[in-house]
């Protein structure tokens, strides 16, 4: 087993060697511009892009023409929200989203608010799920968009997307879904789920960084977007710019592999995750699961370890790459807004650790992580005044803390 162990696969994933093999020729001998219509270099590149578009569309049950290439899911989210608002502004000026969305959606929504758009940020329940009834109640005559993520990047909770899609359709509102963490991990069907716009990216599914897509529905309804980037009119005019053919080929191959291995891989991820969870819970008390126990991504485990602070845990786990919702790991000094939205106290929000399993993790690595997590938490609890007070029987909630 090699250290450091990588268990942060929600942040990014390594490129699958099969993906890299598919990409390499397109950097050198097959370097053509897919928009060059008048020679074989261009035709070769265009065919590679078409093939990739088919592979990507197949994974999400879309038509290849509905795939718009972008630089990644952040750009896709920006294009979906800003492009739609610009196009449909006369119809309405209200959008609905949820408080646990990725920053790419939340910050875009905030910018739109500055431009006079009204945004409703719906709360989530204690497991992180958006309630479709809340959406239904929030819809007004002016609502032009619902944007709800498929699966949360921190806590892995999977939203009832098909239900939201049906609701959106019945109320005549366009539905955007940020599916960055869901695509390639859980089955996605834009038809069955009633999704009109969907963001996802290559590097979360063992493809390259710098490539993503926005699914844009072409019928029932035909969704129109104002482009954010003008130029040569690529991608049905919605996203100009020369297509990065090697990245697109890699993205396509990554989708093809995900489609082939998903049933087996998701089972293996669940087994590894449960092994990790049980291994830790058997040896430590006062460990709390964040997110829904079952409606969650197969590869996500998010735990709060009472009485210890997340960044100190990460420091103790130097040879393991995981991430934390602790304030100290962010620039803002605020603990994770996602964990806070679950109604978890900020002390436990500061204590959250996200484990993101991936295709290349092994049982041996999981066992090593269990051992190191248990050692680190025990050591930090020995060092924690809160743990000492709790063991003395003091209720920490009744303590009068000295604040600045």
């Amino acid at each position, binding site marked *: 087993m090699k250290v450091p162990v990588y268990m942060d696969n929600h942040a990014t994933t390594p490129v699958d060697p099969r993906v890299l093999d598919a990409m390499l020729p397109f950097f050198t001998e097959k370097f053509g511009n897919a928009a060059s219509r008048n020679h074989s270099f261009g035709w070769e590149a265009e065919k590679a892009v078409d093939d990739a578009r088919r592979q990507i569309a197949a994974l999400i049950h879309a038509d290849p023409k509905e795939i718009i290439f972008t630089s990644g899911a952040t750009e896709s989210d920006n294009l979906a929200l800003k492009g739609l608002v610009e196009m449909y502004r006369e119809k309405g000026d209200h959008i609905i989203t949820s408080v646990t969305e990725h920053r790419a959606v939340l910050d875009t929504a905030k910018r739109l608010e500055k431009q006079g758009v009204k945004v409703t940020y719906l709360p989530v329940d204690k497991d992180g799920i958006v309630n479709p009834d809340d959406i239904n109640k929030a819809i007004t005559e002016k609502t032009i968009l619902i944007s709800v993520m498929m699966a949360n990047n921190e806590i892995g909770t999977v939203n009832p997307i098909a239900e939201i899609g049906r609701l959106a359709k019945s109320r005549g509102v366009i539905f955007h879904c940020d599916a960055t963490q869901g695509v390639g991990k859980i089955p996605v069907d834009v038809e069955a789920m009633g999704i009109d716009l969907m963001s996802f990216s290559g590097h979360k599914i063992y493809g390259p960084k710098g490539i993503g897509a926005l699914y844009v529905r072409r019928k029932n309804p035909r969704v129109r977007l104002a482009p954010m980037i003008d130029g040569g009119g690529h991608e049905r005019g919605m996203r100009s710019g020369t297509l990065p053919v090697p990245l697109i080929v890699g993205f396509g191959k990554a989708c093809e592999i995900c489609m082939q291995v998903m049933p087996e891989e998701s089972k293996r991820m669940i087994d590894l995750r449960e092994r990790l969870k049980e291994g830790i819970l058997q040896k430590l008390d006062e460990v709390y699961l964040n997110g829904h126990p079952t409606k969650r991504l197969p590869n996500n485990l998010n735990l709060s370890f009472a009485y210890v602070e997340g960044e*100190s845990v990460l*420091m103790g786990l130097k040879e393991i790459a995981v991430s934390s919702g602790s*304030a100290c790991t962010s620039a803002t000094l605020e603990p994770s807004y996602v964990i806070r939205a679950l109604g978890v106290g*900020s002390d436990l929000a500061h204590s959250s650790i996200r484990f993101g399993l991936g295709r290349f993790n092994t049982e041996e690595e999981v066992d090593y992580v269990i051992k190191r997590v248990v050692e680190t938490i025990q050591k930090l609890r020995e*060092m924690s005044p*809160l743990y000492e007070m709790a063991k003395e029987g003091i209720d920490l909630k009744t303590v009068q*803390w000295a604040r600045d």
Partner: protein
Amino acid sequence: MGSFPKDEKKVGTGVVGAPECGDVMKLQIKVEGGRIVDAKFKTFGCGSAIASSSLATEWMKGKTLDEAEKIKNTEIVQELSLPPVKIHCSVLAEDAIKAAIADYRKKGE
């Protein structure tokens, strides 16, 4: 790292910070003949908070109460090369030093 029995007369205890802020420091001193003969800490917080409190205990040992009271957070920042976002950790350590000394003095009254 560790604890002294806080009821002991020669022990002063300072607890500062709050769990929801992500930092709680407990600093304890043992005083004999007006001098700090030993100091211990327990800290809930990030690496910089733990390091600041650990350094504070090291620096307090052997000092008189008046000398220890003069330890400044800026000295801790300098010694540990703390970045700007971690300066509050050193402030908390200075507060903890003062709180422990104050607790000891109060016991003596």
